[in-house]
């Protein structure tokens, strides 16, 4: 479903990704871990097509097409979802209105009938219930004045209604207490399916207790230096990132 080959990317002429290789098959959950500044979030932004991230080499193939050819909104309509580490606030735009707009633009892209307000409300209520979220959240301005936990849950809500093919979650666990973390994990787990892939970007292993990944990658200095199963995450939790960095340094260039 997603094939990343030798991906290189820069921000303001500084190379952040230095040759990333990664393949995600439908139904798989991959976790990317790594120390701060290793390029984890950059990978997410590059996949979503953010403006200031310049791809300088390599390829990204998504569902058989060249993802780099598409604008961010086209990628989204193809099924790429990015859960933001820092969701953006948009004052004056109600959450429900935003959700309705994005769902209908997605449905339109898929050639499905747009939902009217009643159908939309039904869908939202259903999703809110599974995520243990309060309906009042719909009336508030998009992320405006939301707590950290509310913002993250709101990201999961958006993911739930958009039903993406590939969901990239960028440090969705950061700043969450254990209850919120469970809600987020439950949201993700309930959406795991044969035809959907996940890329979970996280700094800590904690989240992976609740969302058990099929593959764990360690990203250090813009490269994936080690991949393994869920036990790799536990090992990292135990030893920190330094041993991998040292290993890498010891390897011949």
């Amino acid at each position, binding site marked *: 479903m997603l094939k990343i080959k030798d991906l290189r990317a820069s921000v303001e002429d500084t190379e952040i990704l230095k040759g990333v290789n990664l393949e995600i098959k439908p139904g798989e959950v991959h976790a990317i871990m790594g120390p701060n500044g290793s390029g984890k979030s950059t990978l997410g932004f590059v996949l*979503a*097509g*953010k*403006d*200031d991230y310049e791809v300088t080499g390599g390829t990204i193939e998504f569902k058989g097409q060249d993802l780099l050819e598409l*604008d*961010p*909104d086209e*990628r*989204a*309509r193809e099924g790429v*979802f*990015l859960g*933001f580490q820092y*969701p*953006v606030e*948009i*004052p*004056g*735009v109600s959450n429900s209105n*935003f959700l309705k*707009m*994005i769902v209908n*633009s*997605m449905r339109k*892209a898929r050639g499905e009938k747009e939902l009217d307000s009643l159908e939309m409300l039904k869908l939202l209520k259903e999703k809110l219930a599974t995520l243990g979220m309060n309906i009042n959240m719909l009336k508030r*301005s*998009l992320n405006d004045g939301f707590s950290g936990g509310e913002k993250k849950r709101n990201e999961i809500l*958006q993911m739930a209604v*958009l039903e993406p093919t590939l969901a990239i979650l960028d440090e969705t666990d950061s700043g969450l207490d254990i209850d919120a973390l469970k809600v987020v994990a439950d949201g993700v787990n309930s959406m795991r399916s044969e035809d959907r892939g996940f890329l979970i970007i996280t700094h800590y292993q904690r989240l992976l207790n609740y969302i058990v990944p099929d593959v764990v990658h360690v990203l250090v200095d813009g490269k994936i230096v080690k991949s393994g199963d869920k036990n790799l995450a536990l090992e990292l939790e135990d030893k920190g990132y330094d041993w991998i960095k040292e290993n890498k340094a010891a390897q011949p260039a």
Partner: protein
Amino acid sequence: MSDSMQTLEKHTKSEYKYGWTSDIEMDTIPKGLSEDVVRMISAKKNEPQWLLDWRLEAFRIWSEMKEPDWAKLNINPIDYQDIIYFAAPKKQPKLNSLDEADPELLRTFERLGIPLNEQKVLAGVAVDAVIDSVSVTTTFKEKLSELGIIFCSFSEAVQEHPELVKEYIGSVVPRNDNYFAALNSAVFSDGSFCYIPKGVHCPMELSTYFRINAANTGQFERTLIVAEDDSYVSYLEGCTAPMRDENQLHAAVVEIFAKDRAFVKYSTVQNWYPGDKDGKGGVYNFVTKRGLCDGYRSRISWTQVETGSAITWKYPSCVLKGNESIGEFYSIAVTNNHQQADTGTKMTHLGKNTKSTIISKGISAGRSQNSYRGLVKIAKKAENARNFSECDSLLMGDRCGAHTFPYIEIENQSGKVEHEATTSKIGADQMFYCTQRGLSDEDAINLIVNGYCKEVFNELPMEFAVEAQKLLEISLEGSVG
């Protein structure tokens, strides 16, 4: 240039939708302004002597005044002798029957989405349609008159209700108030008149629609609204003009007089031709709008959505004379391409416990300049006056400008004035967040801008709010990235 900037560039090239002209047979007078022209206008309208004298005095005042130059505007010199001061369709409907009207004229308003046939009119909105110098027709007049409400063209009011016109004309905006008000007082041609009797809650929105059609013609309309004790009216004003290469002058005066506990809500959606994308042509919109909260607990609320005109220069204001009276100003001013706007309000607190609220949202795109200019004045006797002002500016792109000039004059120390101002750019992060969810650039811009303007949209009457939102989308088509 970044991608988002290119998107912005692309978007700013949208076309003005109302730029066509109609071929209506017109009765015009020669170009130029003189005492004779003032007499001619007055004679054409069959006005009483007192009104002619009033005009002539205004003309004398104007002749001695100088064009003001304090606004942050770049104005091509206006040749007042090169303007036609009166133009009216030859075939005018009589006795409020549209049968005799020039069919082209009816088509003109149909095309603008303002059908003049009452059966077709939006239920709940009475319309006074003004083309160039005259009012064509007023709908629902009879229904309103059952309640004692007078809603008619200014010219008709002069004939039918001279005592009211004489009492209130110039009572809020005196002839010598400013250069353009003086000019208007001398040559005003038509406009709307509205009188709400004591205790009457006007059941429908009253609306005036202004259309400039004739070339080289100035539009100088005058609107007067008088609200007696305990009355309520919501008044709407809309306007468009054809695309022409030369600038056209629009210098209107609006006066509102509110008595005890009266509430007047005045909403404007201004969409005069803004000129082409290189800044050629467009309407000069120099308007004096003022409301006098004369009575105890009276309230006047201005809401404006300004998207048109090459140059806009207007400050809908409130004089809060009655104790506990309330003045409000909600504004969205959008400038694009080479448009310039210098707009804001004046809240003059004279009475005790008076309150005013100012919410101004400026949006600049292209190479436009958008200024907010506001004065909050608390006079000596205005005990416990309160003002809250919020002036926000939104920039789209990096070649436009936003400016805020708040003036505060306080002569009574019990007054409390709060002022908040922000300037923001449509954030690349906000755009990316929306597009990542699958929204197109345009949808994302509209969403963000509408959110930004929401406080003001909320003040508009329902049908109008929808209209205004659409208008905003058209004005900014492609303006941000």
